[in-house]
Structures are given as C-alpha cells and as structure tokens.
C-alpha cells in the first residue's frame, strides 16, 4: 500500500493541472461563492411614472433604487411602466395614479428574488402605514406604496421553474458545446489521428467546421428538447419571438463551441480537457444570474459575471421567453455574445491551425 501511496503522490506532483484544481479551485470557489451565494436582494431597481412621479420617487424607501421617472398621464404612465419592466430596465414600476385612480405597482416576476424582496418590502410598508395612519402623514411615496394595487407580471405565481428552465437551456448548451466538443477534438490528438488529418488534403477550416458542425446539431436538438419539456411539462411560457431566441441561442452556441475547441487546443488529454471545461462551466452556473441574482453579488466579484457568456444568454432567454422582450432592447447581450464568439472562435482557429498547418507557429 505504501508503494501505491508514494506512486500516487509522485504522479499527482507531476500533474500540475489536477493539483492546481484540487488546491486552488476550492479556495477560489469559497471566495467567489462567499461573495456571490446570496439570495438577499438589497437593491430593487425601480421606475416611477405618473403625475408627481419625481416627488414620489424621492420619498421611496432606500432599498428601491430609482432607475428612472416619467411624469405623464395615468394611461401613458402604465404603458411606459410595462415597457420598462419588459425591457428589463427595472424590477418594479410604481405608477402614482393609474386609469382606475389609485396607485399601481407592477413587479417583474421573471426577476424572482428581486420580486420576492419587493413584495416583502411592500407588505412591511403596508403594515407600517396602517400603524401610523392616524398619527402622521406618511408622505406621497410611502402612501403610493401603501395604497397601491400590486400586480406581478410574467411570473404571477413566482414559480422557480419559470426562471430556471430558460437559464438551464443555456447550461445544457455550455455542456454540449464546451465540454463535449473539447473532448471530441482532444480525442483526435490522443489517438494520433490529428497528425493524420494534418497531412491530408484538408484545409484547417474544413477540419474545424467538420469537427464542430455535428456538435452544433446535437446542441440545437438538445435545446429544442429542453424547451419543449420546459413548456409542455413545467408550463414555462414562451411569449416572445422564436427568431430572436434562435438568434441568441445561435450566438451562444457559437461561443460555447469556440470555447470547446480552444480548451481542446491547450489540453493534451481528455482528462485535462474535462478539468478545464468544468472550470469554465462552474463559474457560469454560479455567477451568471442563473441561480443567484446578479444584484446580490458583490461588485468585486460581479465583474466576472459580465465576462461569462451564460450571463448574456440567460438575459436573452428569460427576456424573450417570459417577458416577450424585443430584440431592440436586447441588443447589448447580442452584441457582447457576437464579439465574444468572434474572439473565442478566432483564437480557437488560430490554435487549431498550429496543429493542422505545421508551418505555422506552434
């Protein structure tokens, strides 16, 4: 047994990547999760619309971060408030006076934890207002909140499955696109067939595309299955444009496949490829807003979330599926995914060429 233990330690010492994963990853995860793993929402992005919107906005409790105000008639204010929530500019919209006369509060149920936090705040405001109703003037903002009709949009029952399934579709695409693709390419190298391909009359682009197209098809089939199950079994609505969703998914798959090839180009074995792929998968699951709200992640760690492609796909999928968000307001995640896809795929092709065109720098 001693001989086995010594042998294992020797092998482990030489497998620096595994060693790093065993020592650095837990520390990294602890730090990141420590700052990221929070369902507590302290800031609730809010817009205020209607007559006296500016005054009402100043009187709101501190946790309601005013993202915009719109002084307008009641009818215009309600339309504007709906648009603001649909486009993801706020989680709560307060309309000081609606067509029915009284104040109206709209809550975006697709931002589950923020919506829950907002509803708790409103409940607290109401009980506080009832207690002080006879003694003092609570002010216009507090009055608006206390007396308002509250409507939860997009996910009225605040179901977790509504927000998880659009994001999980992205996780599955990362799994197929990055993890499985990286294995497929490394397998060629480990088997020695990549060298055979290098001397055959194939352009690097032929090999690159030939390798990723099958995985692309599998990823698309997976996506369709996940969405079909989500809609049919879990009752998740698909309210937006299929074309907009498809375009977002296409860009996202483009990034994940490129990432898979890039990982394979720096991995010598399938084990190394899996390690690296998991290292890209894990932060995406934890930091993309899929589980923990982005606003709950401390700023020092949140910037990582904005580098991860799943963050943007989650925005697109939730926006399109739950809120019917149009492409006009989704352009930032689309542009980011396109840029990231071009950068990652360009780098992957450059690395790939080094193996398939031996004259190139290695």
């Amino acid at each position, binding site marked *: 047994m001693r001989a086995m233990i010594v042998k294992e330690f020797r092998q482990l010492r030489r497998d620096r990547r595994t060693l790093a994963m065993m020592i650095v990853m837990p520390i990294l995860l602890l730090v990141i999760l420590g700052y990221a793993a929070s369902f507590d929402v302290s800031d609730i992005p809010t817009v205020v619309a209607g007559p006296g919107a500016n005054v009402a906005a100043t009187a709101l409790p501190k946790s309601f971060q005013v993202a915009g105000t719109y002084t307008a008639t009641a009818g215009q204010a309600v339309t504007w408030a709906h648009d603001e929530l649909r486009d993801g500019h706020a989680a709560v919209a307060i309309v000081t006076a609606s067509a029915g006369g009284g104040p109206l509060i709209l809550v975006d149920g697709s931002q589950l934890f923020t919506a829950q936090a907002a509803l708790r705040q409103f409940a607290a405001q109401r009980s506080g207002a009832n207690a002080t109703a006879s003694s003092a003037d609570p002010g216009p903002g507090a009055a608006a909140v206390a007396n308002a009709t509250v409507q939860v949009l997009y996910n009225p029952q605040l179901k977790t499955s509504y927000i998880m399934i659009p994001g999980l579709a992205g996780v599955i695409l990362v799994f197929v696109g990055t993890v499985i693709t990286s294995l497929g390419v490394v397998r060629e190298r480990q088997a*020695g067939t990549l*060298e055979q391909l290098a001397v055959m*009359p194939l352009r690097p682009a032929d090999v690159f595309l030939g390798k990723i197209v099958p995985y692309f098809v599998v990823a698309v089939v997976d996506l369709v299955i996940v969405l079909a199950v989500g809609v049919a079994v879990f009752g998740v609505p698909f309210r937006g444009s299929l074309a907009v969703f498809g375009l977002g998914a296409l860009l996202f798959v483009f990034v994940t496949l490129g990432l898979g090839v890039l990982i394979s180009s720096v991995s010598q074995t399938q084990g190394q490829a899996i390690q690296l792929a998991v290292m890209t998968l894990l932060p995406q699951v934890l930091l993309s807003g899929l589980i923990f709200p982005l606003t709950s992640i401390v700023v020092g760690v949140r910037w990582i979330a904005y580098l991860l492609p799943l963050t943007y796909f989650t925005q697109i999928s939730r926006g399109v599926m739950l809120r019917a968000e149009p492409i006009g307001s989704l352009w930032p995640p689309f542009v980011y995914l396109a840029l990231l896809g071009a950068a990652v795929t360009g780098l992957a092709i450059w690395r790939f060429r080094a193996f398939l065109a031996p004259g190139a720098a290695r």
Partner: protein
Amino acid sequence: MTGPAGGDRPAIQWGAEAVSVSFGGLRALDQVSVGVRPGQVTAVVGGDGAGKTTLLRCIAGALAPSGGAVRRPSAQRIGYLPPSTGVYDDLSVAENLEFRSAVFGITGAAAGRQVGEYLERTGLAAARDRLAGQLSGGMRRKLGVIAAMLPEPELLVLDEPTTGVDPVSRADLWWLIARAAAGGAAVLMSTTYLDEAARAAHVLVLDAGRTLAAGTPAEIIASVPGTIAVVPGRPDDTEERRRAWRRAGTWRVWHPPGVPASEPVPPDLQDAVCVAALRAELAGADA
C-alpha cells in the same frame, strides 16, 4: 524490390535536404538528408530516439523542420502512416476507408476493386464491419497502410509499419509495400528490423539525430572498414570488448584496419550498422 545500384537509378524526386529539428534544447535531427526515388523503397533505420519518426513527420508534412528543406508532392499525393496508424478506433474498417476515400475524392469502381483486393490479400476482408479498435495490432497496421495507399500516392511515408507485428502480418505488409512501389510510389519507411532494411533499395542509418550511414545496403556493407570476427564468448581483452556485440548466441568483434582478426566473416547490413554505431560511439568516447 531493390533497385539497380548504378547510374540507371530513377532520379530522386522527394526527400529531405540537410533537415534539422529541435524540440526545446534537444536536437532531434541534425542536418539529415535523404532522397526517395519513385518505384523504390527507402528504409530509415536506427534505435530508439534516433530521429526516425521526426524525419518521417517532416517529410510527410506533419512537422515543420527548423532548418533545411523538404521536397514532397501536394497533400493530395502523399500517403502517410503515423506511429498511431492514423485510423479511427470507433469507425469500422469500411468506414475508415470510406472516410479516407472521401477526403481524397476517390471514387470509381476501379479504386473500390483495388481496395477489395488489398483487404482480401491481407485478411481484412472478413473484418470490414469490425471497429478498428477491435482489430489486432497487426490488422490495424495493415488497415493503416491500405488507407495510406488509397490515394495512389506519389510519396508513401510509413512509420514502422511492421513493428510488433507477427510474421504472417509482416509478410502481408511487405506485399502491400511492394505493391505500392511497383505502382510507382516512392516509399519511405522506418524500421527497427535490419533484415527488412536489407530489402530496401536505399538505407539511411540514424543515431541520435545524425546520419551514421547512407546508401544501398551493398554500399553500406562495403563501407565497413577492417574486418569482423565471430567469437564464441565475450572477449576478455578490454579493448576488444569495446568493439564487440552479441549476435545469435555468439559474439562479433570489429577489428579496425590494420588490426589482425582470426576467423573473419563477411559482414551483412546488421554488422555494418553495428560497426557504424560503434565507430561513432568510440569516436565520441575518445574525443
């Protein structure tokens, strides 16, 4: 298969000219040249780490040399058997050949008939639908060679096609190699078996990335200086021990020119390669 050793040899068409390759600080090939003639087999021999695979990879186009020049036809006209055989374990024999044909754009009944003949002759016909990963080592090598021969290459580069293969499969492989050469291909193969190298038209002997000897087997044998003697046991004399090697139950001792030898024997290619290696070693030790 061995071509005529004179002025009527076919012209060298492909090969390497003073090729050098370095991996980090390690010089894997140092100014190595070799010419490969159409219709002939050129063998590269040498021990482990001699640079055989590196040279073949350079000539096939799988590795860019750090110095020197390589002449080879277009990728469309090169057949290459890498050390791994280059076949896909998770594809069947037929699927492997189908993939290779598709990449090289090979169509037509004649090509199909030829592949059928190769498979039949090498005993692979019955294994057409078996996964390559389920084949024996010898069968995989035969499949790799057949796949490399598919495009009817002008240059066929085979990295140790017969290593670790049973005698029957070796004979099958040599039948394939002979067919390729007879078809006009310039065949460059590496081998650790000197009896195989003796069948080649031209031999290049490598040691630690350097050329030890080159020429036809007859030229290499004729270039052995001095004489070789057979002795029953390991010589007692320290100086003779440095020049002795074991072969088939007896010992052979190389005597440099001017050193008398009892019972001299005519050298063969194996003796010639051993003497070349000894001379390089002794020169290095004495330097």
